[in-house]
C-alpha cells in the first residue's frame, strides 16, 4: 500500500489540476506524484498498445509483468478506453504514456516505437498491423488476423516485404501445457495411437452471448464512429455480430480451437462442410450457431474433426479440443479442469509415460458398470490421466514473452503470420460452406499468400 499512501491529493483538487494534453488528447488523470515517470529502461523495447478494450486490457495485465518494456503510447477511438490505458499503465508500471485516437497520428508522432500490440476490433487488424509494419515496428496482433481472408493475406505479405515480425495471438501455441501435449504426447509417445478424429467446441450461454451494454453518457460522437466504420454506438460495442465488421462467432471463438486442429494434426484440412444460421438472435447478422466438419490428411488415412460454436447454450462444458486415437484421447482446454488424457481400456498400460512424467495418474473413472452398461458390447470406461504441467501465469503471457524474445533474437515466433494464416484460411471458409450449403474442397491457392 506504500504507493497509495503517496496519493494524498483530494479528488476535487485532482480534477481541477490534472487536465493534461497528451498526444493531442485532453485527458483527466492523476498528478505526477502518482504517475512518477520511471526512468526509461536502457535497451528496453518501446511498446504501443492499440485497442484498450476488453482484450487489450487482458494483454496489458500480462505486458506489465514482462521485464524490459517501455510503454510509450496507447491508442483507442473511445475516450474511456484511452483513459483506462493511461491510468492503468501509469499506476501499475509508473510509466507515463501518450494517448492517441488515431494510429496514423500516433505513428507520425512516436518515432522511437519498436513494437505494437494490436487488439482493436477485427475490421481494423489488417489496416493497423500493415501501418505499423510499414512504419518499422514488429507487431503482435490479436486473432482472428482480419475480417476477411484477403485482409489476412495482406498482413502476411506486408510482414514478408518489411522483414518485420508479426505474431498472431493464438496464445495456446505458447502455452506449456499445449506444447507438452503436442511434443511429448502426440509426437514422441504417440500416446493416443493413430489419431482418427477430433472434436472441439466453444459454447456460450445466452447470458454469455448477450449484447455488450455501455453507458450512453460515454457515447462517441457519431462522426467519429462513422469515420472508423461504425454506424452507431451499439455497432461499435457489438461489432462481432456484423458482417462488415467481423467474421462472426465461428471466427471470433472458433479461431481458438480450429487452430489447434491444424497444429496437432500437423496438416491443412482438405475439405470442410458446415451448417449454421442466424436463428436465435433476430437482430444479429452473423450465424449464431455453426457446426463444422473438416477432413484432415494423416499418414495412415483421413481424420475428421467436428467443431461447434453455439451462442445459446454452454452445454458440453464450455471450450475444449479433444483428439481421439485408437489408443486413447487427449482433451485439451485452456481451463485445466476441462483437460484430461484417457487411455483406451485395451491399450498397453502407460506406466512408462507416468514414470517419464509425460502424464500423471488421476482418479480412475469409477462409473458404475451396473448403472451405465446397457449393451454387453459397450466398451469399458476409459482411465483418466492428467497433464503434469501447470501454467502459473496469465494465459496470454507466454505468447507475449515469446514475441519479445523473438524481437531480441532469442526465440522463434510460436505463431508467425504465415502459420496463423494457414489455420485461419480454413476458418474463413466455414462461413462460405454455410452459405453455399455444400462441401468445399480446399486447394493450394486457398493457403497461398
Amino acid at each position, binding site marked *: 500500500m506504500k504507493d497509495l499512501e503517496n496519493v494524498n491529493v483530494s*479528488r476535487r483538487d485532482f480534477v481541477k489540476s490534472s487536465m493534461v494534453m497528451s498526444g493531442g488528447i485532453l485527458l483527466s488523470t492523476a498528478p505526477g506524484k502518482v504517475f512518477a515517470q520511471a526512468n526509461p529502461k536502457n535497451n528496453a523495447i518501446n511498446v504501443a498498445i492499440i485497442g484498450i478494450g476488453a482484450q487489450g486490457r487482458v494483454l496489458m495485465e500480462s505486458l506489465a509483468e514482462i521485464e524490459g518494456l517501455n510503454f510509450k503510447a496507447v491508442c483507442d477511438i473511445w475516450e474511456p478506453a484511452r483513459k483506462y490505458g493511461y491510468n492503468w499503465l501509469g499506476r501499475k508500471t509508473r510509466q507515463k504514456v501518450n494517448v492517441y485516437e488515431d494510429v496514423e497520428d500516433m505513428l507520425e508522432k512516436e518515432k522511437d516505437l519498436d513494437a505494437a500490440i494490436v487488439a482493436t476490433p477485427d475490421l481494423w487488424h489488417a489496416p493497423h498491423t500493415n501501418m505499423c509494419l510499414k512504419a518499422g515496428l514488429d507487431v503482435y496482433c490479436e486473432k482472428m488476423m482480419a475480417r476477411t481472408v484477403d485482409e489476412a493475406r495482406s498482413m502476411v505479405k506486408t510482414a514478408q516485404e518489411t522483414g518485420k515480425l508479426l505474431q498472431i495471438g493464438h496464445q495456446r501455441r505458447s502455452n506449456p501445457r499445449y506444447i507438452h501435449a503436442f511434443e511429448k504426447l502426440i509426437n514422441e509417445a504417440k500416446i493416443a495411437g493413430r489419431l482418427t478424429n477430433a472434436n472441439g467446441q466453444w459454447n456460450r450461454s445466452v*447470458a454469455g452471448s448477450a449484447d455488450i451494454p455501455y*453507458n450512453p453518457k460515454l457515447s462517441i460522437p457519431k462522426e467519429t464512429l462513422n469515420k472508423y466504420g461504425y454506424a452507431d454506438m451499439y455497432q461499435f460495442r457489438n461489432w462481432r455480430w456484423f458482417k462488415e465488421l467481423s467474421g462472426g462467432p465461428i471466427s471470433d471463438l472458433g479461431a481458438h480451437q480450429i487452430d489447434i486442429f491444424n497444429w496437432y494434426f500437423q496438416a491443412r484440412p482438405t475439405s470442410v462442410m458446415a451448417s449454421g444460421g442466424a436463428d436465435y438472435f433476430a437482430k444479429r447478422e452473423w450465424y449464431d450457431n455453426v457446426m463444422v466438419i473438416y477432413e484432415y490428411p494423416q499418414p495412415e488415412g483421413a481424420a475428421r474433426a467436428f467443431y461447434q460454436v453455439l451462442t445459446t447454450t454452454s452445454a458440453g462444458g464450455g471450450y475444449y479440443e479433444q483428439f481421439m486415437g485408437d489408443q486413447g484421447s487427449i482433451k485439451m482446454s485452456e481451463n485445466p479442469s476441462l483437460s484430461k488424457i484417457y487411455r483406451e481400456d485395451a491399450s498397453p498400460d502407460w506406466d512408462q509415460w507416468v514414470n517419464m512424467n509425460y502424464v500423471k495418474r488421476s482418479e480412475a473413472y469409477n462409473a458404475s458398470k451396473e448403472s451405465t452398461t446397457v449393451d454387453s458390447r459397450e466398451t469399458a470406461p476409459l482411465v483418466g490421466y492428467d497433464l503434469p504441467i501447470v501454467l502459473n501465469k496469465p494465459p496470454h503471457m507466454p505468447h507475449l514473452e515469446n514475441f519479445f524474445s523473438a524481437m531480441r533474437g532469442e526465440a522463434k515466433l510460436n505463431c508467425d503470420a504465415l502459420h496463423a494464416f494457414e489455420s485461419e484460411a480454413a476458418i474463413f471458409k466455414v462461413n462460405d460452406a454455410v452459405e453455399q450449403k455444400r462441401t468445399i474442397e480446399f486447394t493450394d491457392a486457398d493457403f497461398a499468400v
Partner: protein
Amino acid sequence: MNNKQLITFATISALLANFATAEDLVELSIEFPPPMITGTPVPAVLPHLEPPGTPAPTIMAPAGTKNLAAGKSVTSSDDFPIIGDLEYVTDGDKDAGEGYFVELFEDIQWVQIDLEKEAEIYAIAVWHFHSQKRAYKDVVVKVSNDESFEDYKIVFNSDHDNSAGFGKGDNSAYIETNEGKVIPVNKLKARYVRLYSNGNTSNEMNHYTEVEVYGI
C-alpha cells in the same frame, strides 16, 4: 397530498416500522440487472468458494424498507480510480459493462457510503463486476456510526486467512453474477457502510458497480 398529509403519513409509517412484529415483516424485493458475460473465461480458483447457483437469502423487513444508499455520497481508500467514478456505486445503474463500474487499484481497497443519518439496516447488496465469472478476495463489509470506523461491526467476511487483518471470516467467497451478493443484516443501527476487497480471481484490481443498503 399536501405537506401536512405527507408528514403525517411518514410519521405513522415510521412508528409502524418501529413496532413491527414478525407478522408485519414482508419479503424484501431486490431488483437484479440482466445477466451478461463477456470475454475469455478465467478459472476462478479459491479454496472456499460457495457452490455456483447458491440462491440469494430471503430477507424479511418491515414494509417501507428501502435502499437508503441511493444517491448518497461515496468515499474510497483510492483517490484516483483507474476508470469510472465513485458516484457509480450508488447511482442505481447495476448493468454490467463500460461506464457502470468504478475500478480501484490493487491490494486491499474500500468504498464507504454515508447514509447521512443512522438507520436500521436489514440487508446490504453489492455488485462488484458481473460480466465475468470471477470471485473477489477478502470481501469484508462493516457498518458503523463512526465515520473513521474506529468502532464497527462486521456483517460479512469472506477473508478465510485473515489476510485483510480483520480476523478470519466465516462467509464463503462467491462467484459474481447479475444477482450480486445479498447480505442479511440483523437490524444493526449504523450511518456508515464500508466494503473491502483485495483483488479478484481474474486480476488484481477492485471493482464496484453498485451497493444498496436496505433499511429504515
